[in-house]
């Protein structure tokens, strides 16, 4: 990459002396792509702006059920709950929906399995969420819990795949670089 930057400078310098009807003096070629800033290290313990402690725990569990850690971190490891807290705290409709949704989740957990949501096994948690997810996938989300699940899933996907963890580590984003030439296909077809 370094050599590409050098060559850009040279091309720019030579080019500037060429006859060109609208030639400018400035060299536009001196260019570098500094690496974007490393992620800020969250100061611990994190204080959510909107969610109460128990709510934040349940939200974190929900997000990690939607995008779990595999070979790469999951939603919690990528800081998604923090992102959701920021989005929700700024929107009255979301605040109402999340408070009610998380309340419903614990009530339903206790009713069916006798425990709060975060205390359930992963199997039970998945069992609770599956019908909500199916309704969303079939585009027939009608009830408040179904809408709540849809919004949590959307925000989790948004937050995860715009994070460095999601975009670079998980998906392997490789762009935003300086290429001397546009590459031929490197896939095996």
């Amino acid at each position, binding site marked *: 990459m370094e050599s590409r930057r050098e060559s850009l400078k040279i091309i*720019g310098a030579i080019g500037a002396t060429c006859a060109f009807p609208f030639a400018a003096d400035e060299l*536009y070629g001196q260019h570098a792509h500094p690496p974007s800033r490393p992620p800020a290290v969250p100061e611990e313990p994190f204080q959510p702006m909107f969610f109460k402690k128990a709510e934040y725990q349940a939200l974190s569990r929900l997000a990690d059920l939607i995008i779990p850690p595999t070979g790469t971190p999951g939603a919690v490891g990528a800081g998604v709950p923090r992102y959701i807290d920021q989005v929700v705290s700024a929107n009255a409709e979301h605040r109402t929906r999340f408070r009610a949704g998380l309340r419903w989740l614990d009530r339903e957990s206790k009713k069916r399995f006798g425990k709060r949501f975060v205390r359930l096994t992963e199997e039970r948690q998945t069992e609770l969420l599956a019908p909500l997810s199916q309704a969303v*996938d079939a585009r027939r989300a009608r009830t408040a819990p179904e809408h709540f699940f849809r919004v949590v899933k959307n925000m989790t996907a948004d937050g995860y795949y715009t994070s460095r963890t*999601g*975009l670079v580590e*998980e998906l392997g984003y490789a*762009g935003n670089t300086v290429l001397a030439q546009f*590459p031929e296909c490197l896939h095996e077809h």
Partner: protein
Amino acid sequence: MPQKIYDVLVAGSGPSGGTLAAHLAHLGVDVAVVEGGPVVDTRTAFNTHAMPFDFPNRHIPTMKPGVPGFDSERSRGVGGKSLTWNAVAWRYSHRDFKGRSIDGAGEDWPIDYPDLAPYYDQVEREVGVCGNRDGLPDLPDGIFLPPVPMKCSDKIVQRGAAKLGINVIHVRKSTLSVARGARPACHFCGNCMAGCDVVAKYNSADVHLKPALKTGKLEVFPNSVVREVIVSEENRATGARFLHRETLAEGELRARCVVVSCACVQSVALLLMSKSSRYPSGLANSSGELGRNFIPHFTGGVQCFLTELIGKPAANDEGFLDHAYVPSFMHQRKRDYARSFGIQFNYQNRRSVGWARAMPGFGKAYKQSIKERYPAFLTFSPYGEMLPNKQSYIDLDYGKRDRFGLPLARRQYVWGENDRKIFHDMTRWSVEILRSAGAEIQSVSAEPSTNHELGGCRMGTDPRTSVVNAGCRTHDVPNLYVVDGSVFPSASEKNPTHTMMALAARAADHIADRLRKGEM
């Protein structure tokens, strides 16, 4: 001290105003460009290389902190929309200029391809357009820099389209594929529409206006929001009044000739605001046609995954966004509508994974399905030509004012039957081509949306049905011109900016010639 009288005042500094002003300056004409927005240093002002995770809310703002704003509506900055365009550059053809003569619908242009061809040549020499000479009669070749290679995914689409007898060609863009002058070749960082910070992509500020300043004939007045074109008792345009973008102080410049190049909707708005006793319904509006014949392109969209690429490793393939194009083919086939459509595709970048929301399920399988499809995601955006209709127009909403106290422009559009038919057919064909390329379709737009605003100051020979003549001069005021997309009598399905720039170069010749003859 008597105020300077410029030869020409150009309102607007985008691709049209910028091209026009630079050409005039090089022709020895004294030009003042009045631009509502600030000067933008394209090398430092934009968040060109930012990533979403650089920002807590994951939204990448257009400008860096502390850089003057870049409003989307009335004030955009010196360079206008060329700062953030995608640089696609097609020549229009005889079929685009003479649509009515060919299929009986819409309107003909009063000019034809040979009138504009030499100006396309000029513009291509100046700005540098990369592309392949394809020899297609409806997409004339020009003076091209070498084309940029297609992406792997483009070639998959190309093979699928070929099975249906449909051509996929290299895109043509006003982006350098080889270094020229002070500008380096594109380095394929994939951020074109965030603002190119090396000027490999054309923008009117760096490529046209800045060099033209050296002629000593051009002055640029940024942060000056034009609110009125002044017309004398003798029916001559004599200048413009404007407000300072920040202080709201009033200003005025005088000129022998005035050109309105504020981009389609804002050009119409400026003329509508410039009322007088002679022109009570807006300047140059004796026909009542000002604002009418608004014909933006309409687009749809298909999102899909190319099965051939599902599960492959992610590639650094953002390139300079779209590298290929499906030129219109339906105009050569049997169909039940007038005009046609073309398809832009594969111009998504890989920083945006919004489609992940719509993948079914949750948990490990959900996460895995997104990872597998990430390298295979591709969007198709067909663009159709809208026909003018009575319910589609631009007017002013005096009930809503911007921070300058000026009424907001209002866009009204209703899709006609022909538009609906094209929309339906272009969506159907998009899906068909993608299926033929082995794609898994994720979503299909159900309704058209608009892009590429055109029309409102129709060019024509009849002063009763058009606003400007074939030279972009208003029928009503002999030294007032409108030069931008608003003059297009018909829209074609092709990206329009290259044609606006050729029109601007042509208008510059007309204006300089008339000044020389003492007609202004």
